[in-house]
């Protein structure tokens, strides 16, 4: 049997016996077809024959795309997202659509209508969210790499919890065309992989100007060119606000050891301050929920997705469909967003959140005048137990404290494994200035080459 076809069979065998629930939809037929073409030399490209899983909020032509929601059950998009088109062009073998928090709202992949995904390092724990399926699939060898989307940390969080690499690119670097929006002004598609070089390769493929996305920025760079082992002369800023209350001691230690390691490899570090960080979480949730309330208005069951009820007037039908089709977390955010945008509250919440956003952006601009990259914990803790935050959504929102400022500012960040607490992986993120992906990739790559936290979970 041919090489790539064989690797597809292997991956699908593993998926078949998997307990992770990393995928919502599989496309074995499509994967084998592409792999066969690569084997026959009919298809080539930078990702030729490599298995890539795609988060279920990214549209795939002819392949079920549900956003982890009941309301989109049965929805088969008639077009490919730009990032998917680029994967196909480079010969990638798309294995299927990965599980996620419903409409990317969550930090644990528990809010998926299709059941929670489990963390490969400990099946009683969450893989992180909202790209939890992508993180688990990569960590559990169910694909070589994966695409996630990062709205408030949703690529970096599962990367951290699952012990893999995840990149949240600069806003505008990767096309959002075909990404089913949760909060458009914050989210970017990001690569996830088991090492920095694969992540950089995937970024090479998906990055680049797309005229179909007005927020897409023309920017040329080759990220794999920056996979060099060299951090000499690099100044690393350590933002003290990211090591605050709620940060697990073991996480704190692991991140500081990583900084010391880079110091030993020739980088300098200094403590810096991003003074508006404390407002980031509230601003983030207001903006995200406002945008979500509007983005999710189109799901009315009229043109696609779930359809319940007949011979009723339109208001009754669409209310029923939305009531049954959306989960608790999604409804909560739509309600809050609708409230925050309504007359009389717009200025009080939304406009204020935009002001905070500007201040946070300025914090980053200022700090990058003195440092090259920032180093901080990706998540304040390691993966928590499934159901741990079920009754207290606010406590779960707090977990995003170190990731959301990056999305508010639009700057890039990469999360890489930097240690373990017991058997659970810990992640460190390197944050860069606008379009400084080369710098953060170089830093992460150098760090990775000089450590051995790039492990497989037990039994994989």
């Amino acid at each position: 049997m041919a090489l790539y076809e064989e690797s597809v069979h292997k991956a699908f065998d593993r998926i078949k016996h998997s307990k992770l629930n990393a995928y919502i939809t599989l496309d074995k037929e499509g994967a084998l077809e592409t792999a066969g073409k690569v084997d026959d030399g009919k298809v080539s490209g930078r990702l030729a024959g490599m298995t890539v899983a795609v988060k279920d909020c990214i549209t795939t032509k002819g392949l079920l795309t549900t956003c982890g929601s009941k309301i989109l059950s049965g929805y088969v998009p008639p077009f490919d997202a730009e990032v998917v088109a680029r994967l196909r062009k480079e010969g990638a073998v798309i294995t299927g659509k990965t599980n996620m928090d419903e409409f990317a709202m969550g930090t644990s992949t528990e809010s998926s209508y299709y059941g929670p995904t489990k963390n490969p390092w400990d099946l009683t724990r969450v893989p992180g969210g909202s790209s939890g399926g992508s993180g688990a699939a990569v960590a559990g060898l169910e694909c070589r790499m994966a695409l996630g989307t990062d709205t408030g940390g949703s690529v970096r969080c599962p990367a951290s919890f699952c012990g893999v690499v995840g990149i949240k690119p600069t806003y505008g670097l990767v096309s959002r065309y075909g990404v089913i929006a949760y909060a458009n002004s914050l989210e970017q598609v990001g690569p996830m992989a088991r090492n920095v070089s694969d992540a950089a390769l995937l970024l090479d493929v998906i990055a680049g100007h797309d005229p179909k996305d007005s927020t897409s920025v023309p920017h040329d760079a080759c990220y794999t060119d920056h996979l060099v082992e060299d951090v000499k002369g690099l100044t690393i800023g350590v933002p003290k606000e990211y090591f605050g209350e709620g940060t697990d001691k073991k996480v704190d230690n692991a991140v500081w050891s990583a900084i010391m390691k880079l110091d030993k490899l020739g980088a300098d570090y200094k403590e810096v301050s991003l003074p508006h960080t404390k407002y980031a979480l509230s601003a983030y949730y207001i903006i995200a929920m406002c945008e979500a309330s509007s983005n999710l208005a189109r799901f009315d069951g009229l043109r696609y997705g779930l359809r319940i009820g007949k011979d009723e007037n339109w208001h009754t039908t669409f209310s029923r469909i939305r009531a049954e089709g959306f989960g608790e977390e999604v409804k909560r955010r739509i309600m809050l967003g609708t409230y925050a945008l309504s007359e009389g509250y717009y200025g009080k919440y939304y406009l204020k959140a935009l002001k905070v956003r500007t201040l946070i952006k300025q914090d980053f601009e200022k700090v990058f005048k003195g440092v090259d990259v920032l180093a901080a914990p990706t998540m304040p803790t390691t993966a928590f137990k499934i159901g741990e935050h079920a009754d207290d959504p606010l406590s779960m929102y707090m977990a995003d404290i170190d990731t959301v400022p990056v999305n508010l500012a639009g700057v890039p960040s990469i999360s890489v494994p930097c240690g373990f607490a017991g058997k659970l992986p810990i992640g460190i993120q390197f944050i860069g200035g606008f379009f400084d992906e080369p710098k953060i990739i170089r830093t992460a790559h150098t760090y990775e080459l000089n450590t051995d936290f790039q492990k497989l979970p037990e039994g994989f």
Partner: protein
Amino acid sequence: MDGDGLEGSVIIGLEIHCQLNKLNSKLFCGCSTKQQGLEPNTMTCPVCLGLPGALPVINKKAVEYSIMVGLALSCEIAEHTQFYRKNYYYPDLPRGFQITQYDWPIASNGILTVEADGEERTVRIRRVHMEEDPGRLVHQGSIETSKFVLVDYNRSGMPLLEVVTEPDLRSPKEARRFINKLRNILEYLDVFDGSLEGALRVDANVSLRGGARVEIKNISSYKGVERALLFEISRQQNMKRRGVKVTQETRHYDDERNCTITLRTKEQAEEYRYYPEPDLVPLSVKSWEPRLKATLPELPDARRERFKKQYSISDDHAKVITSEIRVANYYECVAGKCEPRLAATWVADYLKGELNYRDRDIKDAFEPEKMIYILEQLKTGIITDKGAVEVMRALLDEGGDPKDIILSRNLAKVETDITKAAVKDVIKENLEAIRDYKDGKPQALNYLVGKVMKKTNGRADPAEVNLLLRELLECT
């Protein structure tokens, strides 16, 4: 009711939505704007259907057109312009929000003057902004009786321009004139074809001085505007007369029944949750202004002045001719080949008159070449004025070739020898009148001319008859 007896107490403001239907593609996608007669839902794509993941991309040409309209209305062009989401649920709105402009319209603070009775009324333009059209709902029968509704998204994403006036209009007639003039300007700019169905829709605000303001929505015909306003003003006046207070509300105009009905009151005011569209970045449009200003075509007022000078025609004629770009173009075509003042009379008075009578548009008239032919025949005396009118009417009603019409209907003046024969006959038959003439009664000649005209069924040229009669009478 006398609509214009109301001036002084009526306050009207308009919001006019015009489809920029001369664009090739929709506002945010590549779908064509040409959809008249297409099967429903055949001119759509993921973007204008609002499919999950699809993103809008602004049509640059639509922005240019909007700036040109802003300039033609003497507006200030915005430094930056930005799109907003207007959130509301309706089956014709595929995303659950309409992309429109809010705080940063593309143009604002303009003016347009219209003729009021005996004076010029300067109407201030508050703003000009861009937005997308939603889809179209098709009911089986009427809204009340239809068991279901069909949705056609072909119209979804059609580029609209909304022109909002200050409440400066004082009568329904002025409102109609304003809309006609706006349409005329848009057609001069070649951004709009007002003759297509649904091209123009109007919301009107109307109040009596001191009273509450009522908004009338969804007036979709040119004539409807004046009728809706007349109805609404009369309704408000009747209420006032009876001592009932007019309440602030939004009313729907029913074109078929010619009345307005309550849509919602102030308490039910809609909540649109406007916020900036995150998928479209703000545009710095001020820098586009000089280039577009340079490409602005000649507008109606300028063309009117030029016609007066260049063709020495009257102000009235110039006004009628330039008040529709198609008429103006038609006239220039004819005037280039004929005597311009004669052309003005025949285009402005006769042709326009015949078209109005038939409720038809200049684009349905016969070609200017045919008009030129008619005027040539008239000028050289082949046909009379009356004959020319008859040819025009035949062309409008049945079409065909003016030459054939003149021949088949015997409209050409009869040959001179036939006239001569008739004159001879008349002289033989009216000896008494000839005696009178010779006795020094010149009015007897008129009598004889009349006899000849009658004999030739009016086709002889009276001047020629006159001449022939004198010649023959001198000899006898």
